């Protein structure tokens, strides 16, 4: 960041933007798929947050007279086996999936950044312990461990977020550790230390801000992963529990051969929503990677 400011001529007349290195947004915009992904994601978020207020059916309202109605008329996307409106459920399920993604990733980014930062900055025993811990968690057969823990703690949305968060930190820790290892040897850190700056000042003012970009990229991809994991857990019946809707448990309720063959409105929409959300987040992550890290040429 500071380099761009220094390189820019001090005296400029008129519009200088054409001569400047492209800023973040300009670099992001070049990635067509990332822009499209961002737009789709925004629409999904807005729809799932606001659309339920405008629908005439509540997501959990059971109407036994409307058993597995095909799309059309009063119910735009039909009804499920309890006569609940599929569209309304689809939208509130979006809130669940997206918030699981955000919260779970926030948890593991926090853990990973702290542990990886400590290991990378201080090295030695701390580093050894943190990295062995990371090895251990990575050696866990994660989905089996997750369903085990969730089934013991009780399957619900909070525990799903917690467990995904607790199992997901090692890659972030490795990333942050690597950044800290190289950054702590850089001249500006040595200079700062020479002026008598404390460790915490060096970490928070100089090292962390420079280490954060790969974390942002990893966290974006991580959100996509977390949404997939929540969907899988709910699909297996170990995640969000009905009547609360999630895309995964809507698919869980649609597992029978009869439904797959004759009632596509019960299983295609939630699946397509998961694909749309995860794909667009992945594209956004790819755009971030290209924009934030110009060195990483694909």
């Amino acid at each position, binding site marked *: 960041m500071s380099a761009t400011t220094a390189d820019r001529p001090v005296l400029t007349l008129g519009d200088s933007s054409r001569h400047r290195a492209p800023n973040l947004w300009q670099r992001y915009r070049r990635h067509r798929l990332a822009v499209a992904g961002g737009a789709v994601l925004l629409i999904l978020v807005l729809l799932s947050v606001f659309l339920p207020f405008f629908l005439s059916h509540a997501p959990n309202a059971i109407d036994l007279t409307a058993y597995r109605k095909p799309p059309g008329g009063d119910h735009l996307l039909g009804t499920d086996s309890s006569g609940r409106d599929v569209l309304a459920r689809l939208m509130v399920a979006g809130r669940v999936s997206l918030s699981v993604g955000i919260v779970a990733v926030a948890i593991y980014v926090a853990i990973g950044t702290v542990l990886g930062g400590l290991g990378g900055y201080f090295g030695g025993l701390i580093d050894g312990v943190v990295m062995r811990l990371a090895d251990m968690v990575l050696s866990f*057969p994660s989905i089996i461990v997750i*369903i085990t823990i969730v089934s013991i703690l009780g399957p619900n949305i909070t525990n799903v977020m917690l467990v995904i968060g607790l199992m997901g930190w090692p890659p972030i820790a490795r990333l942050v550790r690597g950044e800290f290892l190289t950054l702590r040897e850089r001249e500006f850190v040595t200079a700062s230390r020479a002026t008598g700056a404390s460790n915490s000042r060096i970490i928070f003012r100089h090292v962390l801000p420079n280490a954060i970009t790969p974390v942002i990229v990893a966290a974006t991809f991580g959100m996509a992963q977390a949404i997939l994991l929540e*969907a899988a857990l709910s699909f297996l019946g170990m995640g969000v529990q009905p009547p609360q809707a999630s895309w995964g448990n809507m*698919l869980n309720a*649609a597992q029978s*051969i009869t439904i797959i063959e004759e009632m596509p409105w019960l299983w295609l929409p939630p699946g397509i929503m998961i694909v749309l959300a995860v794909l667009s987040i*992945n594209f956004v992550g790819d755009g971030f990677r290209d924009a934030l890290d110009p060195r990483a040429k694909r």
Partner: protein
Amino acid sequence: MGRFLLRRLLISAPVLLGITLVMFIIANMAPGDPITALMNPEQAANMGPEWVEAQKEQLGLNDPAPVRYLKWLGQTAQGNLGFSFVDRQPVSHKIGERVWPTVKLMLTVLIVSVLVGVPLGVLSALRQYSWIDYLLTVIGFLTVSIPSFFLAMGLIYIFSLKLDWFPAAGMYTVGRDRTFLDSLRYMVLPASVLGLAQAAPIIRYTRASLLETITQEYVTVARAKGLAENGVIVRHALRNALIPIVTIIALDVPRLLGGTVIIEQVFSWPGMGSLAIASVTGRDYNVLMGINLIAAVMILLSNLLADAIYSIVDPRIRYG
């Protein structure tokens, strides 16, 4: 070679020990205790609480946690994983008959994904920025974004229900001889779902790795010698490009194992994964712990195998 592997093995020992410790803690968080769960409720009621306490004492349930951990570890090391809460069969026996179907599925997926992924990766690299390169990139993004169970439902809809080419569930046709061809038909759909997800990173890494080696000097030298282009690519560039890919494949085994759990459930594949799900539903924690342990060992072994293959294909590693 032997010393190198021994060193790696010694490093994975504390990791395995740590895993068993965490497993034990998790098992202790489970509601109820194995003894109460194993006792006939009627008998326990007749004999009174003293008898229940005596049983617990005898089985060491009142020992402090570290002692119980060591006892449990000793039993586990001897292959005694306890008994199922549900049908009282030994856990090792229950898991034992489920290991082979899972391993069979995983091996098939690994082999197919390498056979498909590596050539496509090479193609993608040799035709960089061509339409096929873009197509493979997009497919790669799609395969990591589609939930495996949703893809499985789609394939069941098309290939089992509409076209009736492949069966939607099971491993063999019931009541018929277990022939290889018969089992192959059951294998196609689950293996395809898992194989797609597994091949995508292989394609990507093969492409990146080959693009990197192709600019190396020894490749230029091989070309300058007048070797045929195919020979240069296969014998010189690809051979070195494959080194990091071996690691990618082995490090991806945990993800494959996770995918197998879900896919076994969808296709009623009689492996460890569907046993795990059944044990979760039946709250059969002893079986669940056993599966966790076996799966962790499988992952450690695959890491070790990666190290071994790595040191064979790249002799420099052994002295690192």
